[in-house]
């Protein structure tokens, strides 16, 4: 069977790993600890596809019916 790259599916929004520096900026901007962000498991298909490791922060850019485009962040956890 051909391995499917989930990132190419229309319903999967863009995920990218933030460099440590930007990750820190995000935490400072929202004044949160990493665990106060929404979480994503390292075993999540998209997280696996982009090679995210626990402790990193992902930026997710989605299409939004209200705002056109919306950004969200997720903290990668074990699992």
């Amino acid at each position, binding site marked *: 069977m051909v391995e499917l790259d989930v990132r190419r599916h229309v319903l999967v929004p863009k995920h990218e790993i933030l460099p440590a520096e930007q990750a820190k900026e995000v935490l400072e901007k*929202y*004044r949160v600890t990493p665990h*106060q962000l929404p979480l994503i498991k390292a075993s999540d298909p998209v997280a696996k596809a982009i090679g995210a490791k626990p402790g990193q922060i992902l930026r997710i850019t989605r299409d*939004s019916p*209200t705002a056109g485009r*919306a*950004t*969200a962040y997720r903290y990668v956890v074990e699992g």
Partner: protein
Amino acid sequence: MTYINKLVDRVEFGLLSPDDVRKISVTRIVTADTYDEDGYPIERGLMDPRLGIVDPGLRCRTCGARTRGCSGHFGHVELARPVIHVGYVDVIYDCLRATCRKCGRICLSEQKLEGYCKQVSEMAAAGRGWWALADEIVKSAATVEKCPSCGEKQQKIKFEKPTTFVEGKNRLTPSDVRERLERITNEDAQLLGINPKIARPEWMVLTALPVPPVTVRPSITLESGVRSEDDLTHKLVDIIRINQRLAENIEAGAPHLIIEDLWELLQYHVITYFTNEVSGVPPARHRSGRVLRTLAQRLKGKEGRFRGNLSGKRVDFSARTVISPDPCISINEVGVPEYVARTLTVPVRATSHNVEELRDFVRRGPDVHPGANCIISSEGKRFDLRYADREELAKVLEPGFTVERHLMDDDIVLFNRQPSLHRMSIMAHEVRVMPGRTFRLNLCVCPPYNADFDGDEMNLHVPQSEEAQVEARILMKVQEQILSPRFGGPIIGGIQEHITGAFLLTRKGALFTREQAQQLIAAAGSVKSLPKPAVREAGEEYWTGKQIFSMFLPEGLNLTYKAKICENCARCKGEECDIDAYVVIRDGQLLHGVIDARAYKALDWCEVLDRIVKDYGTDAAREFLDRVTRLSIAVATMFGFTTSIDDEDIPDEAKERIAEVLDGASDEVKKLIDVYNRGELEPLPGRSLRETLEMRIMEVLAESRDRAGEIAEKYLGLDNNAVIMARTGARGSMLNLTQMAACVGQQSVRGERLSRGYKGRTLPHFESGDLGAEARGFVHSSYKRGLKPLEFFFHAMGGREGLVDTAVRTAQSGYMQRRLINALQDLRVGYDGTVRDDRGMIIQFVYGEDQVDPARSDNGKAVNVEKIIKRVVGAE
């Protein structure tokens, strides 16, 4: 305020051991009697004074505190024989099944047990429960036939409700059960899901029963002086009495059978003491036949401690009564009966500025309306004005005192109608004290509360602190809630006559003499003077309705839109519209078009009110609504507006044509059935032949109903009151009217023609397999002409589905609402625009992803670019 710097880290639930029970007990209870002949509590009885006190004035024999300070102390009963605790029978059953009848080990091999032990300690270290694993262990151990530890052959243990265990053919007594549970080792208990540090398995079989303090089961003294005991006390009396008899019989060496019987009876009483709703156990009853309310019943259900006393409770400073309408008060106001106003109070702190005024309140006292019920001195001492020398108290009143004065005009109160489904179900109103016994409210606020006046009751709450009052005024006042956050449009607005009245006023050719015009303006509560008359004829001056309506529009308002009555012509004639459906407002003057639902109806897509709230603010909108609704009602009264069944009269020739159309349809259905029977019907893609036929028939019949309606509509013009209501969107629809005038149409259940009842037919009046229009619930008659008996029956079938649907829908959506609210109640939007829960977890990075509040947006957008361009270019 005192702050206690302690944090609840965790809560642990365990069992009380018999020793624990004895340790917390202040006395052993031995006599079943409560009071002696003189009415004094008997020592070592159920009302022993050491168990705490209920009567004020006495001191507790154990701790020495008074009623307030002492919450009571437990006693205990030593049971002559152990009994099983009903709440734990399931756990006991698991323990018995899983362990050996001889050595008490779990019937699994040493290695398996070790493996499980490891898993359990891992899970415990991770802070997780291991219930699922314990279940697995029980299941696998229960089927083992020979104990791997001691080699004893195992027997099947059966559990018989409520508390009996049978091994093979022998009944296990609670003593046997307890012995076996005692043999379970601590390690094994752990594997069965029991933490032996806080709950040994044998503690599930009771040998000592705690007796709750009297404060938990106070006795009531009736007016006649007769003492009436609490249900729990009654139950405890039963337990102690049987326990005593059992003990005596054992002592006397009575036959086995008698002891067994008494033991069984003791078990019954202990079961019903814990819960009186066990299946298989007849509920314990009071002497009068009333079922006793024992421990579990106190906590369970809607009226139980949790839902009835903790999640929701009765509150002070509230009132409830029937509501009735008053179109003359503002939407911000609520009419409060004087009786209610005299009972509810607002605390006012006396200052040098208001002492004199407050003294007057105190002098008038509790029985004269703007009075006061109570005053509180600077030291916090309360004086009830009912029993005091009010003249004297008025004299001592000085700054620093607090006066609880009656509710008065312009006080702020919260008004609520259940079910409170959205935030507009509780709004702040200003008080208008009125005669009568009902709460009065403006008709415009019916939609947000979903209220009508067929006997609805509503609740009123008086905020007590200044902070609460101001907050209510700023955030919760009715005028602040005109726009619903649900769809961004007004939820408060004109209804019914407000719409027809405005239509009659503003339609083409509506002219008013000076006297009439002034009367209308006065009714609306305005004092503006009339503009120049639009028409002068034979020395008489006339004003158009549009002129009068314009007097209430704010200056500078520009709008262009199509009214509700618009017929969506292929080519819009704009301002030249035949039916005046093209509305043009320039600088607050209604130049063209009529005012109807599209202008200011509640819960509708309304242009004028929406614009006023958004551009001129809530104050202007409130004034507009108050004035225009009163104006509309005055117009409707002036013209006289009524509807009756002869509004649906149509001439005979129309009736004939409708009959023709319907007969034609019936014939066509017959033809379709013929084609179908001959097997010549072309199936639609993806449908069976039968489905195709049904669809075609439904199509034909629906079309015939529509055509019948169209014929009727030709004779129902805008000179007809029923049509005015339907077309302007005030009430009813054209469909309703054509169903009354022309033809009711096809009845359906689950979107299909009626088919159930008898084999192959709906009623025995038809042949089996008849697929014709009449046989499957098509109603030819109109409501006005009346339905034929068969049609009536079919109509009832269709109608019943509607009723069932609403019943099911409300139940389902109610439960969904409950779950949603429980999930969302702690979310809030922070100052940085993020949505977070109570722990600061981010739920949404930007509220709604665009940070727009729908109630403050224009068409769901933060800025309405089109509107701005129009304004700048000057097109509007």
